[in-house]
């Protein structure tokens, strides 16, 4: 088994055994999606209009809950020193961690989203677009989050600063993702918005491992 796959499988195993990260993210997502209809009231037309935006923002915030531990756990217990000395470039280490985070958090959030869309009375075609947009866009959340997690690695209470760093960077994902759902509601094609979302996600996943690795190197020298 290659070092990349070894690290990926270990991080997925840790996420599953910790029990906290995925379950916490899913619970938070479900709570947001439940509370918003209670707050808005029984105006179904309004709920349908805000569904895309609320569920996208809810998914991003939920994914944020576990992002601060992406590198920090390994940094604090000394594992990151050992991983840095392995025959695996830090860029690939960061990529493995991004993929593991998406598989343990972003993917479950995406799978849950059609169920939560029922609370907003979202029609079937728009729900399908919501699902596809989250499937395309949540890898970008993990990737951009990795940059923030690596920057706040050695900071105490870095988890509080993390959202301030990465939420502005994730604005395009929220705009294109929620926009695709709105276009579907209006009976217009969502292909353009989804393409832009895919381009953003592709760029994020491609570039963020380099930024995260550079930041991890800097923190290891501290």
């Amino acid at each position, binding site marked *: *088994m290659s*070092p990349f796959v*070894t*690290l990926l499988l*270990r991080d997925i*195993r*840790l996420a599953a*055994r*910790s029990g906290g990260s995925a379950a916490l993210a899913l619970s938070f997502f479900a709570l947001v999606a439940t509370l918003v209809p209670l707050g808005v009231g029984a105006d179904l037309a309004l709920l349908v209009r805000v569904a895309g935006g609320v569920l996208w923002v809810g998914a991003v915030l939920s994914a944020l809950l576990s992002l601060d531990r992406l590198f920090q*756990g390994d940094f*604090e*217990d*000394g*594992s990151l*020193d*050992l*991983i*840095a*000395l*392995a*025959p*695996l470039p830090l860029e690939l280490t960061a990529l493995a961690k991004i993929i593991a985070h998406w598989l343990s958090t972003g993917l479950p959030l995406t799978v849950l989203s059609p169920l939560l869309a029922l609370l907003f009375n979202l029609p079937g075609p728009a729900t399908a677009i919501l699902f596809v947009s989250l499937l395309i866009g949540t890898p970008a959340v993990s990737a951009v989050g990795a940059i923030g997690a690596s920057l706040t690695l050695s900071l105490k209470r870095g988890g509080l600063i993390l959202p301030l760093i990465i939420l502005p960077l994730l604005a395009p994902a929220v705009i294109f993702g929620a926009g695709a759902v709105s276009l579907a509601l209006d009976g217009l094609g969502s292909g353009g918005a989804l393409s832009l979302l895919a381009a953003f996600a592709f760029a994020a996943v491609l570039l963020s491992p380099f930024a995260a690795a550079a930041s991890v190197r800097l923190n*290891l*020298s501290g």
Partner: protein
Amino acid sequence: MVNGKMISSLTAEKLACTRGDKKLFEGLSFRVKAGQALAVEGANGAGKTSLLRMIAGFLAPVAGRIVIKTAEQESDDAEERGKSIGWLGHHDGLKPQLTVREQLDFFAQLYRGIAEANVLALVGLARQADLPCRYLSAGQRRRLALARLWVSKRPLWLLDEPFAALDASGQALVAHLMARHCGDGGIIIAATHEPLGLGNESLKL
């Protein structure tokens, strides 16, 4: 053994290190050959850990260089040097959620080392093989870290306080593993307050 090559020596030339505004050391030079151990001694804050992190490539020297020599070449590239290093730091690098065996297999696969079946018996953890690491004592965690170091099969060991948290038998185990490593042609540089017991040279910071 790294890429089938043994390291014949590690040479530090006029190293200097500062942390913040504080100068820890400068003009530091030493040479360690294959089969030798070097004990780095000094008071707390003297720069022992910083020196080890510098050799590992985590920390760039302010001045000077570190050269590794093999039969074929000399190199002062930190990334290249990192591939030959087995690291035992202050922290053991163990995950409480993983069992002893899972932890060892993980590092063996990560380092493309060899997960020897008897290595847990060697460090006295055979009976704890399927126990999650959160149930291990500090001494047992250190023993597992030693097992991890052993399976990494790296020729240059950098050890930071290798005897910490260990009882008498654990300290004897460390001495035994270090002697075997040096006997196999490996190099050890250890930051320690206690004698290594290998007839080694020492460096005072």
